[in-house]
């Protein structure tokens, strides 16, 4: 057993951590949130230059051969800075689906653009009726002489507005909730028949509702085998859970530390409020929630790197349950202990709280993953 990181992993963590600390302050982040695009293209190019997008791809794919641990280390730092650049949607979700499901040709076609930062992508998997069930699809892809015809509607597609490429799940056979019969396609976001409605999200990101109106796809748009796409999207989403969960761990660390600092300096009734035992115990709980979630994060990342299967999925679901529970507790407590200040748009606290709230919902909330954990 050894929970230490390799030299390369430590260097990677330091590199992201330094960037977030020195070049990604809260005020600049808020300006980006209010900008039209919602993130900075300049930052995006810089991340590509730093090599961050290639970390989790193999050398053959044009990356550096990292895995879940590297993803976790980066995402935890991203969480501390409430990063708005769409690395999750482009690299982890869409890039991940192509990596896990694509043929050599497809990978050679799409991954270089994602790794060098020239392509924006999104994974369109959720549907209004499906809640968190990845197989609950009414979007269909009908086979025809040239390939497929895609028809349907996708909900809350993260990074939809900026995406050049859409990775889309659709049913090619079976009933509405069957796991078999799900297929995954790579779709040009500007193809005829694709229309979007763009909007900001609660946590300062961008998303779209996307309609596919008889979009014509060539046969090579299909990732993997027809009808076998559920495993691809499940895998990409599990990577996504690890990423947003690690972000949540970063958020919680900022929140408990900032809260402790605040309580040591904020005076009421003639003394710093941190002198009150009730608040001390609450902060001990916040600290503990953070450490607990971090512990399950390590276990999930190690399981993922040992090999993807039921045990890895179970560890990921356990992690997501903890992320949801702890995130809510730490977020709400931070707001409570900051009092009125915690409610303001001006202070960072409320923004971390919002991000944690959204992360609980993303890819399935506590109840959803508790059930999955129990099934596995």
């Amino acid at each position, binding site marked *: *057993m*050894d*929970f*230490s*990181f390799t030299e390369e992993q430590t260097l990677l963590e330091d590199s992201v951590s330094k960037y977030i600390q020195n070049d990604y302050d809260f005020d600049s982040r808020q300006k980006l949130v209010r900008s039209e695009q919602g993130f900075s293209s300049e930052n995006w190019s810089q991340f590509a230059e730093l090599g961050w997008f290639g970390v989790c791809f193999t050398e053959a794919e044009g990356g550096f051969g990292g895995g879940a*641990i590297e993803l976790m280390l980066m995402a935890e730092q991203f969480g501390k800075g409430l990063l708005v650049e769409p690395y999750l949607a482009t690299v982890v979700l869409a890039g991940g689906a192509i990596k896990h499901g694509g043929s050599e040709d497809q990978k050679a076609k799409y991954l270089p653009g994602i790794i060098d930062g020239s392509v924006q992508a999104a994974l369109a998997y959720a549907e209004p009726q499906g809640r968190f069930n990845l197989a609950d699809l009414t979007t269909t892809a009908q086979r025809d002489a040239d390939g497929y015809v895609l028809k349907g509607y996708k909900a809350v597609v993260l990074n939809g507005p900026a995406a050049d490429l859409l990775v889309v799940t659709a049913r090619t056979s079976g009933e509405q909730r069957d796991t078999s019969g799900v297929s995954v396609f790579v779709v040009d976001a500007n193809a005829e028949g694709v229309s979007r409605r763009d909007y900001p999200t609660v946590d300062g990101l961008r998303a779209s509702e996307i309609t596919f109106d008889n979009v014509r796809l060539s046969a090579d748009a299909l990732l993997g085998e027809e009808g076998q796409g559920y495993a691809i999207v499940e895998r990409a989403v599990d990577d996504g859970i690890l990423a947003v969960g690690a972000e949540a761990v970063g958020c919680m660390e900022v929140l408990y530390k900032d809260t*402790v600092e605040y309580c*040591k300096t904020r005076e009421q009734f003639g003394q710093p409020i*941190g*002198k009150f*035992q009730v608040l*001390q*115990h609450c*902060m*001990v*709980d916040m*600290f*503990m929630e953070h*450490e*607990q979630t971090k*512990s*399950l994060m*390590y*276990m999930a*990342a*190690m399981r993922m*790197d*040992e090999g993807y299967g039921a045990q890895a999925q179970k*560890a990921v679901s*356990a992690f997501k*349950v*903890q992320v949801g529970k702890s995130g809510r507790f730490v977020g709400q407590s931070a707001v409570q202990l900051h009092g009125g200040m915690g409610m303001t748009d001006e202070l960072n606290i409320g923004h971390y709280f919002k991000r944690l709230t959204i992360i609980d919902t993303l890819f399935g909330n506590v109840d959803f993953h*508790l*059930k999955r*954990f*129990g099934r596995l």
Partner: protein
Amino acid sequence: MNRYFGADMDAFSDRVDTFIERYWPSAARIVSHADVQVWRAALVNAGWSVPQWPEHQGGTDWNPTQHYIWRRACSTYGVPDADEVGTNLVGPLLMAQGSAVQQELFLPEIAALKSWWCFGFMEPHAGAEVAAMTTTVFEKDGELRLNGCKNFVFDALRADFMCCLARRDDGFAFFLIDMRADGVLVKSTPTLDGQDTMAQVTFNDVMLMPASQIGLVRPGSEFERYQFSGVFSTLARSAQARAQLNILDRVISDFDPSDDIHRKRNDLAVDLSVLEALELRYLDALQRGVQVPFSLIVLRLKSRKILLQLGALQVESFGYYALPFADDALLHNEGPIGPVAAAASVRQSLTQQLSAIYEGSTEQLKDEAWRHLGHQK
């Protein structure tokens, strides 16, 4: 990063399992007093009675992972603690602060599990507040005399010796007391699990053995009982919880799948995997000799929460069979009432309630955790 202990540690783990399976009855039957005697003798023979002590004092050269594996196995098999007060508290205290004479007199006896120890700390009017304690040792005619009272003393009824915190003119010190000396009065305080394991001990002008004083606690310094209890006994509590969860799983396996108890069980199972992961992080730091990521209090708080929840969930799962409150003798002679697993469950969960209190209340631990966070009150 990896979770594996490695081949040599796996081999050690197999050795431990084999040892326990040989000398400890399987969980399927109710354990008798004779079983405990056999087990203790086996421990002493194997040189595993005080593994956490230095080798030259009768301990082992185990690394932290081996200690963890040992404790984990003991919890999994439900093996009783050898003698927590003697081996975990008095022994280390003597080694740190005792004289050569004291060490020679007591350590071999403790290592051989020949003497039972209890710990005198709390007092009727002072509770755990050291400054308010009144039990006092003074010198009379060249002899040390002890007067006062200690309550909530665990194991006092069967103990041969007590390690007792008492006032001395220049502060507080620990005193080693022969429980059979004149003037020592032990009165049982029955506990809510129906056991006679706790007592009040009154000292009426007790003449102390020569050289019975160990160390001196500075007046005003914070004295924490749990600072003495072993790291490794805290580090493998998840195994105890895992064993109990397995019992629960057997009981609820044929319950209606829609019963809400399955959700509660899964919730607890996630919590348990949190505890296991916390323990491994702590162990990893010990094994690598680096700064631990958090204080042991975190593990204590988490493990007690899980064990208490588990107890409550067990009671819930047994339905009406949570009601019978039979003692060991009755169960041993006439067999279990209702499902075997239910027989001792309610009592066990009550006992867990008690042992949690012995470490300090949850609120006390949180006070301590706050200090560990690096922030003064």
